[in-house]
Each structure stands twice: as structure tokens, then as C-alpha cells.
């Protein structure tokens, strides 16, 4: 049964269930809930939805070193013996056919690359053609330009504004890495399943890494790409990535303490949510120059 002033609280059930009322609004609405059976009933039914929503985020594989850190921090004990890391064998890239745009298997570079020179120098050292230069310049220019983007007006652009602050922070982080004096890099080349794909990792002495990918094939439903540090002991998951409709992806991550750079890196295709050890085909692979 509704109480006499129910109309004043009409529509607040969903906001309450989502925790989207201010402190004062919430206090008033909870007072109303004490006498309004209709609202109590609807809130209960909507709470089921809001708690389910927390499970909607795609499960992700965390950095492998996090387990030990969490367990030690919480319990003061080390329980690292349960790790199930498996070995990962690098494919023989000597037999991979060379394509028009992919020449080198990857190399590291040191020091002192300015922002706008970075793209050109990276391309030159990889021996890759003008297409990639233009593409990388375009993307880096886009990152810079979006930092200065004006207030968005249309419906779609309004949605972008909802994440603009966070995106700006991320882009500043990328620029900090690629323009730093201590930047190093590794190129990843497309494997037979993705011969036109390319990857590019740049990192600094603070263990911050930017990863750029181009030309990745569209993912089948239920699959995702997973980036790996291929160490001598075992592959270590770096992160998951889902490319955009052009097959491009840009992300930042922290290099785990257990990884000594430069090391080989690879991208495999895996079930959504990722796996602890690689199971799928290799799409990109890069190794430091021997």
C-alpha cells in the first residue's frame, strides 16, 4: 500500500537501489520506506539487479605477482607454492613468411627520444615502411589532440565526456612514458594467423609500459587477446586487450617485478576473461635482439 505522500518519492526506488541518492535524499527516502510497502517491494526487486550488476564486469586475470603481495600483506605469510604457471615455448619465427610490412622480429632501443621524434625513430629502427609511420603518428597525434578537446555537445560525445577525466589521465601517462629519456622499445610482428598485425611496446625505468597494436583480426565471440611477457621460466600474463573495429589497441600497464626487461612478448587469443598460462594461437611475437 502506498502512503499519502508517495508521489514525492516516485521513481526513487531505482536510484536508491543503485546508491545514487545524496545523503539527505537517502535519509528522506528511508523514512518513506518505513511506511510505503509499494516502494519497499520495488526496492527489494531492484536490489537483486544492482547486486548482479557488480558481476557484469568482465573477469580479468590480475598481474601474477599480486597474489603473493595480497597474501603477504593480509596474513603475513607466503603461500606462493600454489602457483600453476606453465612453460611457454616460443615459435620459430625464422620460418614465418615475411610480409610487405613486417620485416624485423623486434629489438630494444635506449634513451632520449622526444615525443614527435619517437614515432619516426621507432619506425626507422624497425625498418618498417611509411604506412606504419603515418599510422603511429596519427594515433599519437590523436592522443595529444584529445587532451585539448572541448566540451562535448552531442549525445554520443556527452558519453565520452563521462570518461574524459580518466582518459586524459591515461593519455598523460602514455605521453610521459614515450617521451621520457629512459624509454626503451620492442616491436612485435604478426604471425601467420595475423601477418599484417603489428605491436609496439615502450617502457621506462619506472616499469611503466605502453603497448600499441595494429591490424589485429576481429575477435570471435567469447574470445579475447592476451598479452604475455615470455620469460625464461614461464610466460607471465601482462593484460587482456580487445582491439577496436580497426584492430587497434592502446594500453598502459606496470611491468611485474618478476619480469626483467627486455624480454620477449607475445599476444595469444584466449577465452574471455583470460587464462593463467597461454593456450591459444600466437598472433603477435617480439623478441629482443640476441
Amino acid at each position, binding site marked *: 500500500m502506498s502512503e499519502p505522500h508517495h508521489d514525492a518519492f516516485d521513481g526513487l526506488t531505482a536510484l536508491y537501489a543503485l*546508491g545514487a541518492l*545524496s545523503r539527505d535524499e537517502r535519509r528522506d527516502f528511508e523514512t518513506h520506506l518505513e511506511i510505503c510497502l509499494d516502494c519497499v517491494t520495488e526496492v527489494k526487486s531492484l536490489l537483486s539487479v544492482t547486486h*548482479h550488476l557488480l558481476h557484469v564486469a568482465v573477469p580479468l586475470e590480475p598481474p601474477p605477482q599480486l597474489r603473493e603481495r595480497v597474501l603477504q600483506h593480509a*596474513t603475513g605469510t607466503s603461500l606462493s607454492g600454489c602457483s600453476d604457471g606453465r612453460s611457454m615455448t616460443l615459435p620459430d619465427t625464422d620460418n614465418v613468411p615475411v610480409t610487405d610490412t613486417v620485416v624485423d622480429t623486434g629489438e630494444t632501443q635506449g634513451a632520449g627520444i622526444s615525443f614527435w621524434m619517437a614515432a619516426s625513430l621507432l619506425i626507422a629502427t624497425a625498418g618498417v615502411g611509411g604506412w606504419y609511420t603515418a599510422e603511429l603518428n596519427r594515433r599519437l597525434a590523436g592522443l595529444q589532440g584529445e587532451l585539448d578537446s572541448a566540451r562535448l555537445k552531442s549525445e554520443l560525445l556527452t558519453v565520452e565526456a563521462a570518461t574524459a577525466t580518466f582518459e586524459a589521465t591515461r593519455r598523460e601517462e602514455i605521453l610521459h612514458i614515450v617521451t621520457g629519456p629512459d624509454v626503451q622499445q620492442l616491436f612485435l610482428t604478426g604471425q601467420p594467423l595475423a601477418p599484417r598485425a603489428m605491436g609496439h611496446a615502450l617502457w621506462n625505468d619506472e616499469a611503466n609500459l605502453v603497448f600499441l597494436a595494429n591490424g589485429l583480426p576481429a575477435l570471435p565471440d567469447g574470445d579475447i587477446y592476451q598479452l604475455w611477457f615470455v620469460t625464461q621460466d614461464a610466460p607471465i600474463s601482462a593484460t587482456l586487450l580487445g582491439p577496436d573495429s580497426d584492430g587497434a589497441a592502446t594500453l598502459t600497464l606496470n611491468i611485474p617485478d618478476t619480469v626483467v626487461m627486455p624480454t620477449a612478448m607475445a599476444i595469444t587469443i584466449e577465452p574471455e576473461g583470460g587464462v593463467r598460462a597461454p593456450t591459444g594461437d600466437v598472433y603477435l611475437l617480439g623478441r629482443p635482439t640476441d
Partner: protein
Amino acid sequence: MLLRALDPSTTRAWNDEPVIDRQSVQRIADGDAEVFAKIYDRHIRTVFGLAMRILQNQRDAADVVQGVFAQLWAQAKRYDVTRGSVASWLLTITRSRAIDRLRSRRTKPKSDPTGGDNAVVEFPDPTVEAEPHLLTAESVSKLRTALSALPLLQRVAIELACFEGLTQTQIAERLEEQIGTVKTRIRTGLLKLRATLTV
């Protein structure tokens, strides 16, 4: 095929987990570190996934995860088995901590000892009554699909509340809409999602 192995973590049945979890939390309350590690292994991907969904930054998400599990270890005795699943409890804590981190990353926190409107408003208690629909991999998948199928602004308004902790007023400002419009969008969207769970 260059690399092939089987990941056993993807084959576990969901329905057995709530009971196992609740028993495990009782053992964690008694200081069982090995059980704590098993709970970590069971839930880390969903907890980390939610933290990443909110923060979009691996370093911040890892810090939040550390805080969540530290809280589980320290407060396991306070866990009330009549209040929803352990998974929901962990995710509720994750949401609160991640949104706190998100806000502190954006602005310097104001010194309001009461928390005021800057405090993260947690979802009301995840009581058993709040979870009448069994949480299964299928129900989560259906909800994920239904959420993505909502009209854009309905979905965005819900996500801003759920994953950024914004109030109706803040959502209205963000979307440049009237509060009444936001209220309607969110309620309409949640009712559609509820219908998905009841099918």
C-alpha cells in the same frame, strides 16, 4: 597450434560456490591462511575485473584488490551468512574502494569527517532477500547482454551510478539532462534488466 593447455579455472561450477565460500570465510575468521588463499584464487578475477572496470588502471586496481582482501582477512568474523553471497560481499567492498580511489585520483578529497556526500554510497545491504535470483554464469551473461542492449543513455546513466558512484544530481550534470529524465532513464533501464533475470 603453437601453445595449448587447459585452464581448469574455467570449468568450475558456480552453484557449489556460495556454501563453500561461507564455510571458508568462517575458517578465515579463525586465521586459516590457506583457505584465505583459496578464496583469493576463486574470486580474484571477478574482483580484479570489477576494479579494472571502475579504475581502468592496473596499478590502482591492484591496490584496491589488496585492500579488499585485507578487509576480508581482518573482518571475516563480521561476515553475516544471512547477508548474500561472499562474492557479492567482496564485490560490494571492491566497488566502494575503487570508487573512493577514482575520486581521489580526480580531486583532492575534502576534509569532511562525516564523509558527507563525498562518501561512497554503498548499495543497501546485500541481504538474502536482495538476491532472490540465483547468481549463475548464465544469469550474469544474460544481464551483461541486456545491459549492452539498453538505449545508450539508459545504460550510461546506470553505469555512472554503479561504476562511478555518481548521484542523480551528478549524473544529470554529467549528461546535461534534467534530474527527472535521469530518474526515469535509470528506473526504466533497471526494470528492463530485472525482467531479464526473471525470464
